[in-house]
């Protein structure tokens, strides 16, 4: 599902007439059916926001399913949520915020037409995005080993008799088998939501690589910044989804025994 932004043929950037007082910039990619470039830019970001509305409603369905099953099977959700490592999740959140920070700086660099800085920031955004996906892979792999991936191979033994910590004290409440089965619903929601989020990250990184190539060629250093701005909106949206996913999935109840 590629959300292709209004892509235009890259024309050679012509000398731009820059007025000090009111910046009337002649954008080379000014599409013929718009009256002014101003109209084109606003239409672009308005269209992007409308697309983000569909993403809000798309993730909204998942968030509601999470809300429902968290209330129905809270006892099963607590130990299942404690399976997730908060340090990794927290690190991931920080990484994604940093990636968003660099993306915002990238948008700034494009606006002030500094090509080298723009390329640098886009690369940094990609690097941190890949770092996020790397940590996600580590977490998924750990679930794979523990047989916590929902489906036929799902194993509830770790919830029925939870491991004792060094002092022999149980770290979690032992779950009776029929409640332990409901942890599978938590893990389904975990994989569905973080998987959908990761898919959006992968699409984003794909677009980033393409944007870096065009930025390197200088397409966005002559006043035409719409693709960078619109991609920035998309990237920050993906960041916001993770800002909600992290507390809701990782931090359900960090002190179960109290």
């Amino acid at each position: 599902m590629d959300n292709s932004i209004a892509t235009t043929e890259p024309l050679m950037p012509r000398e731009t007439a820059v007025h000090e007082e009111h910046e009337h910039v002649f954008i080379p990619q000014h599409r013929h059916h718009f009256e002014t470039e101003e109209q084109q830019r606003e239409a672009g970001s308005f269209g992007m926001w409308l697309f983000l509305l569909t993403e809000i409603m798309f993730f909204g369905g998942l968030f509601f399913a999470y809300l429902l099953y968290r209330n129905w099977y809270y006892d099963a959700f607590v130990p299942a949520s404690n399976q997730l490592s908060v340090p990794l999740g927290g690190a991931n959140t920080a990484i994604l915020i940093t990636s968003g920070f660099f993306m915002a700086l990238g948008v700034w660099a494009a606006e002030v037409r500094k090509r080298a800085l723009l390329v640098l920031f886009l690369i940094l955004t990609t690097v941190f995005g890949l770092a996020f996906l790397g940590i996600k892979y580590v977490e998924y792999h750990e679930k794979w080993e523990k047989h916590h991936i929902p489906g036929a191979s799902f194993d509830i033994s770790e919830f029925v008799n939870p491991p004792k910590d060094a002092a022999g004290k149980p770290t979690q409440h032992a779950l009776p088998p029929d409640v332990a089965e409901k942890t599978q619903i938590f893990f389904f929601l975990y994989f569905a939501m973080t998987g959908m989020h990761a898919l959006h990250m992968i699409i984003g990184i794909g677009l980033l690589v393409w944007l870096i190539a065009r930025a390197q060629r200088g397409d966005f250093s002559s006043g035409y910044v719409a693709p960078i701005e619109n991609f920035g909106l998309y990237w920050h949206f993906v960041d916001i989804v993770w800002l909600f996913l992290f507390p809701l999935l990782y931090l359900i109840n960090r002190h179960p025994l109290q």
Partner: protein
Amino acid sequence: MGISEVLWQYLVKWLTNSALFPREASTIAPYMDALYFFLIGITIVGLLLVLLLIVGFSLRYRKALHPVAEQIEGSTLLEATWTIIPLGIFLVTFVWGALLYFRIYTPPVNSMNIYIVGKQWMWKAEHPGGQHEINELHVPVGRPIQLTMISQDVFHSYSLPEFRVKREVIPGRYTTVWFQATTPGTYHLFCTQYCGTDHSKMVGEVTAMLPEDYKKWTELSTSGMSLAQNGERIFASMGCNACHTGNASNRAPSLAGLYGSKVQMANGSIQLADGAYIRDVILNPSQHVPAGYAPIMPTYKGQISEDGLIALVEYLKQLNTNYRIQQTQTTSVSDQAAPTTPGMVKP
């Protein structure tokens, strides 16, 4: 009037066969038909009004008669009228419909309960007296009948058009509907929620009988063991009596007099012990742990069919003393340990 006998028969057959609405065979039917005719009246009036306006204006102001059109901006008075009046009518319909809905879906207390189990492409009716029917339902006339229904697989829908009742039959949850038959006869039973290949074969007959005929029928077709007795048999064979002995041990609560009471849960909430509660305790025991007990009851999901669960609910409904359990207790405990359910993970 000189109409020949044959022609008269045909007319009657044709008339009854292409009736405009089903026979009114239950107490709620006249009320439903009243709302139906009220709404049909509104539709006809609305349609006539719109047709009158359109045909009238079209003829009066057709180009030949009125070649130059006069522009009219609109009139807020007219806008108000055709907002308020439809709204008023619709609100009346809303209230009337809601009253009917609550009347049908809240069964009276003294109603005779029959359990319906829907499964892919047939209906099983379980009478408390032990009569079991497939795609059939025999009910006495003049008494409120409550149907407690559940599905073993997919969504079905128990529809009795002549009684004007219909309820979705959902897997995993009891749904209820009630009616009181008025005229004896056989009526249609349909499954109206698409449920797979033979959805259209999942039909049946509902026979409303006079009370004495119904009594005769119950004696003829009983399976010899009432649902409660069947429940007691399952209660013993599944080893429930190993823990639920009724004497004061803290392994399991006494079940005597449980049905209909309010149970204090371990997590502080209070739940009404009705059929749905009992069924859910059997399938997901650890989500309904009463105060003062440990979640040690194994789940019986997949080992007791819906019919068995219904039998257990009926058994607990009439269980007032633990006398019989303790009676069987002294004989069975000696020679056989509590059977462990296969697949149960050792705590």
